[in-house]
């Protein structure tokens, strides 16, 4: 019952006026970011990350690191909800996790003429999915963190290896492309001083590279600039379908009635979404496709899918929002990001001077429990704002391309510059924007690159600490039962695509993809 006391303390922190105010601002920003097709949740969080440095250091009255994480996480919650609005109303996904809503959300709004019901169904299932996930988060986080406190370098390295293996084994893209991106992330993380020996590495004589390549400019480039280049190619926001965006109370009541009919589906998808979201590197997008697949699989009305079936909205939404919340669990408890967005939030923790992982629960309980309490508040706030402000949010789609696109570039450049007051970071952002755009085009997944970049230093440190402890013997990793199991599990995960390919070749068909990737 210790959890309830901690959670009550968390609510006291989260309900501090500055935290509530920043949560509100963040949720509104997140909803706007979610609605804009050229700007995703990950890039939105990355672009606004430098501002949180000022928030964390008390630039606003009463603000601290807890305010900063509540702000960043709030953007994520807003984007999780907001991304679906444009999918349903305009057939344009605002976020990758809202792509799946094109299948049934848009047909329900357009063909069956029920945009209000489609939106309300999405919001109520998102809310319930997130609520289930947050409850599981509340009860699972502390035991995982307490267990993780016992980890030594061998166990920690094994956990990192396992998280990399899930990116390769469970990704939708070619596993070799995932592996190449993962290694590229590890390589980029190694640029600059070696923390153990102090030697310079991979800086090619450039003094400016001695401190390494910062995570934030790379992520803003890969996601922010890369995404708007991709959307420019698709001719950006061209023709926008004109559907009424009004959402009445009647729609909400009808959605709740529909939800009650599908309660089992929504709850089971939320629970599955939670465990899926906890897996490193996947997050909401993959969970949304999984949720849609499950909803269709167990539906009695399979033929209605693709024509505006409400289960095709509620199933993926419950899973996606649940996974979005769950992706913070490994980040907070183990220091391993569950999704690219949580990788950016984790980079924020480093910048504010906090060490993500189990020690956080001991050293900064207010921070952790304040965050957990803010997830409850954030989703409630997002839900209410969505019900009230859909027409306003839909209007954002009408901001002209010639203004919104350069504005996103400008904000991205401010974000990358302001962290270190460095023009080098600006050029890194622009160059990685072009690289990210091209890699996306060539179907290289970006999630392994981002996760490896943020975990690269820790992985190397734990690997070398373990080797030093074992006097150079790799057998040290098998001294502990837990690290042995984790490494074996990682081997099995990496072998999955190989087995899939061999089986497919025997059948004479192309290997099937597992799940979609963010």
């Amino acid at each position: 019952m210790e959890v309830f006391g901690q959670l009550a303390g968390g609510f006291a922190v989260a309900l501090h006026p500055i935290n509530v105010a920043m949560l509100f601002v963040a949720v509104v920003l997140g909803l706007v970011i979610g609605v804009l097709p050229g700007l995703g949740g990950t890039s939105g969080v990355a672009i606004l990350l430098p501002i949180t440095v000022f928030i964390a250091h008390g630039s606003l009255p009463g603000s601290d690191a807890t305010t900063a994480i509540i702000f960043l996480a709030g953007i994520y919650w807003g984007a999780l909800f907001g991304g679906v609005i444009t999918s349903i109303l305009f057939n344009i996904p605002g976020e990758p996790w809202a792509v799946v809503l094109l299948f049934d959300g848009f047909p329900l709004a357009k063909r069956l003429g029920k945009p209000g019901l489609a939106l309300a169904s999405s919001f109520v299932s998102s809310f319930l999915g997130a609520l289930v996930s947050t409850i599981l988060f509340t009860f699972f986080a502390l035991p995982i963190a307490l267990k993780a406190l016992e980890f030594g370098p061998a166990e920690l390295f094994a956990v990192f290896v396992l998280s990399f293996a899930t990116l390769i084994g469970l990704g939708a893209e070619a596993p070799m492309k995932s592996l190449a991106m993962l290694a590229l992330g590890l390589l980029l993380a190694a640029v600059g001083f070696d923390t153990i020996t102090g030697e310079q590495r991979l800086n090619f004589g450039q003094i400016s590279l001695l401190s390494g390549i910062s995570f934030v400019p790379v992520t803003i480039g890969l996601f922010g600039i890369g995404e708007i280049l991709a959307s420019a190619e698709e001719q950006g926001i061209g023709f926008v379908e004109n559907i009424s965006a009004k959402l009445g109370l009647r729609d909400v009541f009808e959605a709740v009635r529909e939800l009650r009919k599908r309660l089992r589906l929504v709850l089971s998808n939320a629970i599955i979404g939670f465990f899926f979201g906890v897996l490193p590197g996947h997050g909401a997008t993959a969970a949304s496709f999984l949720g849609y697949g499950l909803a269709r699989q167990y539906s009695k009305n399979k033929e209605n899918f693709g024509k505006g079936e409400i289960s095709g909205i509620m199933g993926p939404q419950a899973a996606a929002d649940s996974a979005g919340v769950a992706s913070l669990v490994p980040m907070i408890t183990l220091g391993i990001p569950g999704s690219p967005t949580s990788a950016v939030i984790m980079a924020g923790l480093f910048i504010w001077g906090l060490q993500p992982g189990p020690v956080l629960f001991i050293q900064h309980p207010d921070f952790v429990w304040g965050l957990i309490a803010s997830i409850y508040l954030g989703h409630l706030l997002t839900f209410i704002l969505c019900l009230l402000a859909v027409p306003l949010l839909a209007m954002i789609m009408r901001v002209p391309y010639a203004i919104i696109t350069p504005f996103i570039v400008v904000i991205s450049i401010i974000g990358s510059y302001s962290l270190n007051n460095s023009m080098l970071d600006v050029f890194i952002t622009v160059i990685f924007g072009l690289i990210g755009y091209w890699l996306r085009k060539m179907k290289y997944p970006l999630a392994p690159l981002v996760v490896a970049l943020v975990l690269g230093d820790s992985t190397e440190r734990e690997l070398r600490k373990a080797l030093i402890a074992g006097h150079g013997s790799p057998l040290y990793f098998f001294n502990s039962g837990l690290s042995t199991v984790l490494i074996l599990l990682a081997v099995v995960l990496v072998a999955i695509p190989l087995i899939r390919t061999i089986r497919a070749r025997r059948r004479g068909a192309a290997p099937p993809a597992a799940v979609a990737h963010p």
Partner: protein
Amino acid sequence: MRPYQVATAAAIVMIAAVAMFDSRAAFSPSAGTQVGDVGARWYPFWAAAIMGVASVVVAYRALTTPQGTEGAFEGARSLFAVLKLAVPMLVYALLIAGVGFRTTDFTYSIVPPFGFYLATALYMGLFAWWLGRYKIWWVAAITIAFPIVIFAVFEIGFRVSLPKSFLYTSGLLPF
């Protein structure tokens, strides 16, 4: 798609080769400062090696499996749409910092640093005029309003100091 896939994989192999060459000291007997430590170069060497091998496999798969016949871009229009955004963005970044080179004695400036605010005004104005085709007063309003709002929010509100122009250093402009 095949040539693009192979060229992309080849570029990654090149990066891997450069990184492996830089980290060749991984095999030096003096690597590492403590008993059991593999040294500073071991980790980047093997990360690069894995990246290189994975990319070789990607290239091999691209050469030996059926690939789509389409190009990387769906026609010139699609390529032009990307260039319309990418080229001004590069010019914008260069304008902020200025273009020049430095010798041991002098710094030669080819384009003086326009700083963040002047470059942003030009960049936003260009898009409004060129892609938006707005009337001239709208272009003027966008050109002036955006940098002022950004100045108020970031420079005054968040106290983020953004790069200033050559006119600031000579005392002619406040940014």
